[in-house]
């Protein structure tokens, strides 16, 4: 795609958010980073720009505005925080691709029977929910990343994104449970 896509990363100053921000900055994307502490998010922006001077990346203190501008939203927040973030951004993410990096196994909450995609889809019903997680069963290089979701176009978009970030995208079979893998990307 020639037209630059805007990706908003919510939870950008966490370890996952930082990693994903720096890997995506190599692509033809404009990144808007949000987090609970703007100063921490700004540090991530500075680090990204230090390694890739041409990267188009910016810290924003309003998650709602950042998601309104976005074409794609990455939720780099724990599963337990997904609901709170969803409530904040719901009205501006309609029909957009929303990616969760959450791993319920890491959290104190019970693993939802239906998986992260279904939970995210329930929280944000009119979005194209996708889950991205590392494949724990292989040491292949580049690292394999499993992509799960129901919308074909969204899976294609996210596969492209994952490749840009330097990983090998593997689309999970439709209907396969997406509850039992690790999230580190």
């Amino acid at each position, binding site marked *: *795609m*020639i*037209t630059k896509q805007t990706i908003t990363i919510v939870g950008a100053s966490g370890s996952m958010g930082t990693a994903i921000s720096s890997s995506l900055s190599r692509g033809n994307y404009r990144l808007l980073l949000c987090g609970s502490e703007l100063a921490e998010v700004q540090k991530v922006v500075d680090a990204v720009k230090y390694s890739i001077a041409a990267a188009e990346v910016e810290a924003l203190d309003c998650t709602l*505005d950042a998601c309104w501008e976005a074409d794609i939203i990455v939720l780099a927040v724990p599963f337990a925080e997904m609901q709170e973030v969803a409530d904040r951004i719901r009205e501006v993410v309609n*029909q957009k691709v929303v990616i969760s990096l959450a791993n319920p196994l890491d959290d104190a909450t019970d693993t939802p029977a239906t998986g992260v995609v279904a939970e995210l889809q329930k929280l944000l019903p*009119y979005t194209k929910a996708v889950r991205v997680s590392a494949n724990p069963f292989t040491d292949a290089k580049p690292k394999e990343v499993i992509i799960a979701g129901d919308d074909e176009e969204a899976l294609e978009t996210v596969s492209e994104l994952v490749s840009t970030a330097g990983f090998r995208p593997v689309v999970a079979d439709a209907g396969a449970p997406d509850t039992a893998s690790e999230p580190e990307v």
Partner: protein
Amino acid sequence: MYELFFEEFNKKVPITAEEQEQIKHYLTPKKLRRKQYLLQEGDVCKFIAFVEKGALRAYSVDENFTENIIQFGLEGWTISDLYSFLTEEPAVYNIDALEDSELVLISKSAHEEMLQTIPKYETYTRLNITGAYLAMQRRITTIISSTAEERYQDFINLYPHIAQRVPQHMIASYIGLTPETLSRIRKKLSSGK
């Protein structure tokens, strides 16, 4: 976020609150900053954009790198590369924002689904495309049969609000004149000759 969209929709096809809610689920709210692209030539145009706030333009770039403006999109208008949107062939136009803008996007899949399931959306689309066709016919007639001065005056009469918001060189491009020619015409008109 969707106020103007539904206001315009209701003017064309009155809908109930339930129908409005149903349509809303298919819409994508999107903010675009000044100078950012919604679409670049070569990509398939995947959206029809309705302008809630702000201003956009669609233009092609010729071999001399001259921008030729095909369409402006201000509040209440839709803008797209319709040929690319409908045929899924690469776009020949670029669309970018002249001001910070708020858009309501309708994706190809949302458009197709609404055409199938919401009859009033089909009527709305028919009226929109008819309007666009009439505007295009008028534009072609003006370009092939009017003098430069007539073209400018026609533009000012038809779109006085655009003339106030966009730079003169863009108006010149839209009506197929060089900025120098437009400047001469404006001088002539203001001196009353």
